[in-house]
């Protein structure tokens, strides 16, 4: 994080020294782009905080550590698609799941959809590429995540 700040500031200074015009143009683009997504972004944050209140970590752990592994894989991918967790929450949570003997297949479905499929980021995604592309990309990512989960399960000897 600090590294990112330093790099950004350094690059701005460098750009400033070499070409003032381009730097100003770049800053204008930055402000314009940021302004465009600020509202969908805030909406997303509101939704994330409300959804996480109703589906807290304990509930996710509880659901995924009981029941059939195949239905859980599917359930995990659904939960992963609708929630949005930053890595510092998602991976410790996956670690807990692993300790509770949840199969790697289920964990894989959860983390992969978490990273690739974003129902909550959909409003932002459509701002950039339109509804059609956003929709197709998310569907495609969901299928990839399921495939990855199943293969992970096979390679860890959890299937068959």
């Amino acid at each position, binding site marked *: *994080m600090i590294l*990112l*700040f330093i*790099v*950004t500031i350094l*690059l*701005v200074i460098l*750009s400033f020294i070499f070409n003032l015009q381009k*730097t100003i*143009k*770049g*800053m*204008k*683009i*930055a*402000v314009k*782009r*940021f302004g465009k997504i600020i*509202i969908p*972004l805030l*909406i997303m*944050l*509101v939704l*994330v*905080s*409300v959804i996480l*209140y109703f589906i807290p970590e304990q509930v996710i752990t509880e659901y995924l550590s009981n029941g059939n592994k195949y239905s859980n894989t599917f359930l995990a991918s659904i939960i992963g698609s609708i929630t*949005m967790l*930053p*890595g510092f929450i998602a*991976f*410790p949570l*996956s*670690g807990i799941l692993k300790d509770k003997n949840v199969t*790697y297949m289920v*964990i*894989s479905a959860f*983390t992969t959809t978490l*990273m*690739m499929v974003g129902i909550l*980021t959909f409003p*932002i*995604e*459509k*701002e*950039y*590429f*339109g*509804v059609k*592309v956003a929709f*197709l*990309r998310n569907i*495609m*990512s969901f*299928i*990839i995540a399921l495939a*990855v989960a199943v*293969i*992970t399960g096979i390679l*860890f000897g959890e299937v068959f």
Partner: protein
Amino acid sequence: MTKNKIIKIIIISSFIIFIAVSYMLNFEQGIDIGKNFFEFSLNLILLLPCAFILIGLFEAWVKRETVEKHLGKDAGFISYFWAVILGGCTFGSLIVALPISYSLYKKGARLTVIFTYLGAAAICRIPMTIFEASYLGVKFTIIRYLVSIPLVILTSIILGSYLEKKNFKVMKGK
């Protein structure tokens, strides 16, 4: 300002009022939701200005020809390799990767490459990978990489080519 936008602003302001009132009345549920909100927002508030400044500089400095040459129509298979590397070096999440991919697209990168980049930015960001491996084991991470990257490239090519064939033009927000 469109009607849609006004509704969204109303939703956001009523949410903020709800959180503020919850704090004043010590309404526990509201405070919990508010805490979630602040935790996630803080993360993004620190991240996004840097991301957008870098995107702005990128658009001002990098020539269209450069992007076209490496990520455009005639760049060949190596462009997917670049897309995966770029994705791996992206920080943050889709929220950062999306504006970056949009800039790349505007500068002449192919749709297929864009999809690969977005996929890679989701699944193989380097800092996240280290984090993941420490919690779930190296084997898990390696399997996930070896399986998901080829799948991402393959599906990106299929989806991107399909859209290109239909002469698809990106229309923002529609």
